[in-house]
């Protein structure tokens, strides 16, 4: 039913011949990210630690839980690059195995907080009213506690162990993500494309899945990355207080705590685990920074 008077429409076809390639927002972000040197350094650090964690059984020269008491607190040497600890164990090997623990706890606690936080945030933000009031109040209450105290309390209930530290960290970080998602949902709800989705008769559930969630993902990813960094520090802090990993697990924070009394006699037992924590956390923070710059809609023209 083409009609001749419709001809002017063709005018809109761009005259540019060179065909522009399809760039999805994610791809676009990835490109920006690749140009960010610091973020790449961050990726480098994290990939390094992941590799170390995965390859630990092959690269660690000694088992992490066996040492000779006679070899107690020996300084770095050819056999023991990072020296030995109070039980005569190889610090280097323990630091290597420690990477497994920190990455595991950091990642999975954040996944937990993100899942729970997103669900609660979505409910609060999208349905509003009393659901919002209840959820927001709970977040307020949780945030009014100093988070480390809350974590200590949770671990105290569950009993000190790595797994429980993970759960505690996941719990205390729920409000962070919940609030983020809620705020995001509230602003997205007012966006015209959500209005447009409603205008074509879309159901709430589909709007949430297709429009709200994908558009909340970027900040969640950024905060999540930074959250891993925080979670690693929190796990180390719990380990430091004796509430996280248990002996002989080579958790970095616990290694610090166990060796702190030897700091003058055997500083290597304190320096290396601490440096490892800092580097890993720095890595995630660098990536987080880079992601924020890459994903921040305000940066886009």
């Amino acid at each position, binding site marked *: 039913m083409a009609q001749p008077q419709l001809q002017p429409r063709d005018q*809109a*076809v761009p005259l540019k011949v060179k065909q*522009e390639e399809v760039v999805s*927002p*994610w791809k676009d972000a990835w490109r920006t990210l690749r140009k960010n040197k610091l973020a790449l350094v961050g990726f480098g650090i994290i990939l390094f630690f992941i590799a170390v964690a995965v390859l630990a059984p092959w690269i660690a020269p000694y088992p992490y839980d066996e040492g000779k008491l006679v070899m107690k607190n020996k300084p770095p040497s050819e056999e023991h690059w990072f020296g030995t600890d109070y039980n005569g164990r190889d610090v280097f090997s323990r630091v290597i195995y420690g990477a497994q623990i920190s990455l595991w706890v950091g990642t999975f606690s954040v996944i937990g907080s993100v899942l729970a936080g997103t669900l609660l945030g979505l409910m609060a933000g999208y349905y509003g009213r009393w659901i919002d009031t209840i959820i927001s109040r709970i977040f307020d209450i949780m945030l009014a506690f100093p988070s480390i105290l809350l974590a200590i309390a949770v671990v105290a209930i569950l009993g000190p162990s790595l797994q429980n530290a993970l759960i505690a960290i996941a719990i205390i970080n729920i409000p962070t993500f919940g609030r983020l998602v809620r705020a995001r949902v509230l602003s997205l709800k007012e966006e*015209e494309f959500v*209005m*447009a989705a409603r205008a074509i008769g879309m159901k709430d559930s589909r709007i949430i899945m297709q429009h709200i969630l994908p558009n909340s993902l970027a900040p969640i990813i950024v905060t999540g990355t930074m959250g891993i960094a925080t979670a690693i520090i929190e796990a180390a802090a719990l380990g430091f207080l004796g509430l996280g990993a248990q002996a002989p697990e080579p958790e970095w924070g616990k290694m610090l705590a166990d060796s702190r009394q030897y700091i003058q006699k055997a500083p290597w037992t304190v320096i290396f685990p601490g440096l490892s924590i800092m580097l890993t956390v720095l890595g995630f923070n660098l990536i987080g920074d880079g992601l924020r710059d890459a994903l921040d809609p305000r940066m886009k023209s």
Partner: protein
Amino acid sequence: MAEDLLIVKNLKKYYPITGGVLGGEVGVVKAVDDVSFTVKSGETLGLVGESGCGKSTTGRSLLRLIEPTSGAINFDGIDVMSLSTDAMRKMRRDMQIVFQDPFASLNPRHNIEKILEEPLIVHGLGSSAERKKRVQEMLEIVGLSSYHASRYPHQFSGGQRQRIGIARALMLKPKLIVADEPVSALDVSIQSQVLNLMQDLQREFGLTYLFIAHDLSVVRHISDRVGVMYLGRIVELTTSSQLYSNPLHPYTKALLSAVPSPDPDAVRERVILQGDVPSPAKPPSGCTFHTRCPHVTEECRTVRPEFMDAGDGHFVACHLYKS
């Protein structure tokens, strides 16, 4: 083309203002305050007014994207206000909306194909292949190419995005399209492209438009009839030629005279209104325009003028034209 597709009666939308110690409701913003009009099948009804006068609120209330406070909306013989949420969703197949900001109204994370396909999926229309085909066709219809389908909104210019917005509205073959300032964000040369497209589509698909804009020349160009809004109310409603050649309401007159003309020879009487538009949270008593009206009388301050026919379907709400 005589039957009324849309009949709106006494539409009101009040937004609550909260505040005070307990955060309770301390007042209302009368965004739309008792608006009535009809849109005939196949025509374009224009709605003009300055920013904040309630144009968008009116448009969105019609689709119940905003839940109206009160009033009656009859669309194609159906009482829209009484529909359940679910029935309303289905109803929206027949009434669509095009937004002002072509970027904000497209999900930046979906590509064009997905955006255009979505209405069909939502209403369970066609198989996947059929839907893809429809998308291709629709892209051609609005003057884009099928190879655009896989691109994302940020890869388009403003005019192209608005074409996509229009295409999405057309996917369900609606009867009525509410166009909420579809060209305000566009450059002049692009604006004319979109206006032409909309006119072509109307002819092709027999569409009915409610065309919202603040640019009087645009409204004049595209509309059959025009309503002028001021502070939540329609103050004048008539055919576009009548409105421009013989405006009755003092506000319409001022508005028309304020539009700068690119013709250096045009000699027009200038009415420069004093002051600003009052806040819809505290609308003036009586005729809401009385604070700025050059012809204000005592009656204007106290009595709200009726919106009535001054002859020939030329409706006006002003005490000057009491029969």
